[in-house]
């Protein structure tokens, strides 16, 4: 195994790089995805995000991904896809322009400004969130009346208009209806007592080894299943073996069970 991917060594290497001021501190856990990494990198350029150098950003990101990959061998695919796209975009931005714009791909400058736009937008949203949570938040910065009058005056004009609640209100009765109509039939089984009575009556005639399937009562038009007849008869027979009235034998697992009255020579 390559010694380089040992965590301690990597940690040292990262520290050295950081101290030398050339390394990136790569902490993937701090980022949700490639766009968030790009935004942080773009902010470090300290220019209007819309006028940002995409080629420089691409270099920074590729360096980040290289480092991240060294530390986290299983770097998420979306980071790598973004790296590949940026490398491609950078190469196209650096290439001399074609005489006529080709149709198959959008102009690299447009792709670059799209990226700048997305970063500016994400940045704006992050700042907006900060502004929102930095404003007058109820019960953190401003406080309502702590002890409203016992006869509270409540707003008349507020009724929830929430589609999700409406949906939930629709689903509940629909599913409730189906619950009501589901009535599983209780399974009828051959009672052990009945099986015992049945066997008792048969024992005097069981002078030869007789298969269980023959001894068990036949199924009727309604009532217990055949499996229930066989199972209950077997259970009852085991009990009667214990009591000494019956003998059982089976030649192999899962093969037919034979019954015979006890004491037959």
């Amino acid at each position, binding site marked *: 195994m390559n010694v380089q991917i040992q965590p301690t060594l990597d940690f040292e290497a990262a520290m050295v790089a950081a101290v030398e001021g050339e390394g990136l501190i790569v902490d993937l856990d701090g980022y949700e995805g490639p766009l968030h990494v790009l935004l942080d990198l773009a902010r470090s350029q300290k220019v209007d995000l819309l006028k940002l150098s995409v080629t420089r950003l691409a270099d920074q990101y590729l360096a980040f991904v290289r480092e991240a990959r060294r530390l986290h061998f299983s770097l998420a695919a979306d980071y790598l896809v973004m790296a590949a796209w940026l490398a491609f975009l950078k190469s196209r931005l650096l290439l001399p322009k074609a005489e006529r714009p080709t149709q198959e791909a959008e102009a690299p400058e447009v792709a670059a400004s799209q990226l700048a736009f997305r970063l500016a937008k994400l940045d704006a949203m992050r700042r907006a969130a900060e502004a929102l949570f930095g404003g007058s938040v109820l019960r953190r910065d401003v406080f309502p009346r702590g002890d409203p009058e016992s006869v509270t005056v409540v707003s008349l*004009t507020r*009724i*929830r208009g929430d589609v999700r*609640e409406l949906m939930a*209100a*629709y689903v*509940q009765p629909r599913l409730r209806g189906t619950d009501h109509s589901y009535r599983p039939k209780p399974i009828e089984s051959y009672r052990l007592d009945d099986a015992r009575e049945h066997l008792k009556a048969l024992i005097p005639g069981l002078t030869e080894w007789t298969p269980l399937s023959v001894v068990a009562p036949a199924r009727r038009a309604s009532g217990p299943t055949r499996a229930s007849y066989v199972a209950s008869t077997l259970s009852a027979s085991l009990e009667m073996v214990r009591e000494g009235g019956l003998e059982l034998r089976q030649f192999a697992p899962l093969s037919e069970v034979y019954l015979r009255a006890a004491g037959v020579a």
Partner: protein
Amino acid sequence: MTAMNDAARMIEALLFAAAEPLSQRDLSDRLPDGVDVDAELRALVAHYDGRGVQLVEVAERWRFVTAADLAFLMTRERVEPKRLSRAAHETLAIIAYHQPVTRAEIESIRGVQSSAGTLDVLLELEFIRMRGRRRTPGRPVTWGTTDHFLEHFGLVSLSDLPGVAEMKASGLLGLNLPPGFDVPDPSAAVVDEDPLDPADAPEFHLDFLGDRETGN
């Protein structure tokens, strides 16, 4: 603007936000040192004298109360419900999805008899309306939603109501749906309905009450 010193502002805010009346001791514990709580309270009482809110002392504790002569304002009963009851919510949802739908159909979907009050509440809120009459024996009245309903729920049209896919995506429906479970498209064309004719309107109350008695 009424000029006010910091200590008075603090006392005003503390008394306003407190969940129970505060004593002078409570106040001075929460205020910076050196505040003459007693003097500030007197000044505040004077400030609020004659206003809609009064600062009063009860059992050596201080609190704001509304002026006694305005008590009549506070006793006003509320007419409209703030939150729809579960029955009303379900009925509204069923009408929205199944419209035009008769009262008997609503009841059969809900599995319980609707009280006349439920439809009344929805009518009063202008969420539902009579749409027409079903072409079946008895010609029962059919119900549908109003434009106000759409507006209120932020829907552009009835076809914007979320369907089965969204119900599943939001976790409201499990994956093993009962056989035959479907959600109707309320924007689909309707065939078996007659428009309301003007003569229907006065009968409305009759239909409504009659429905209740014959509902099963």
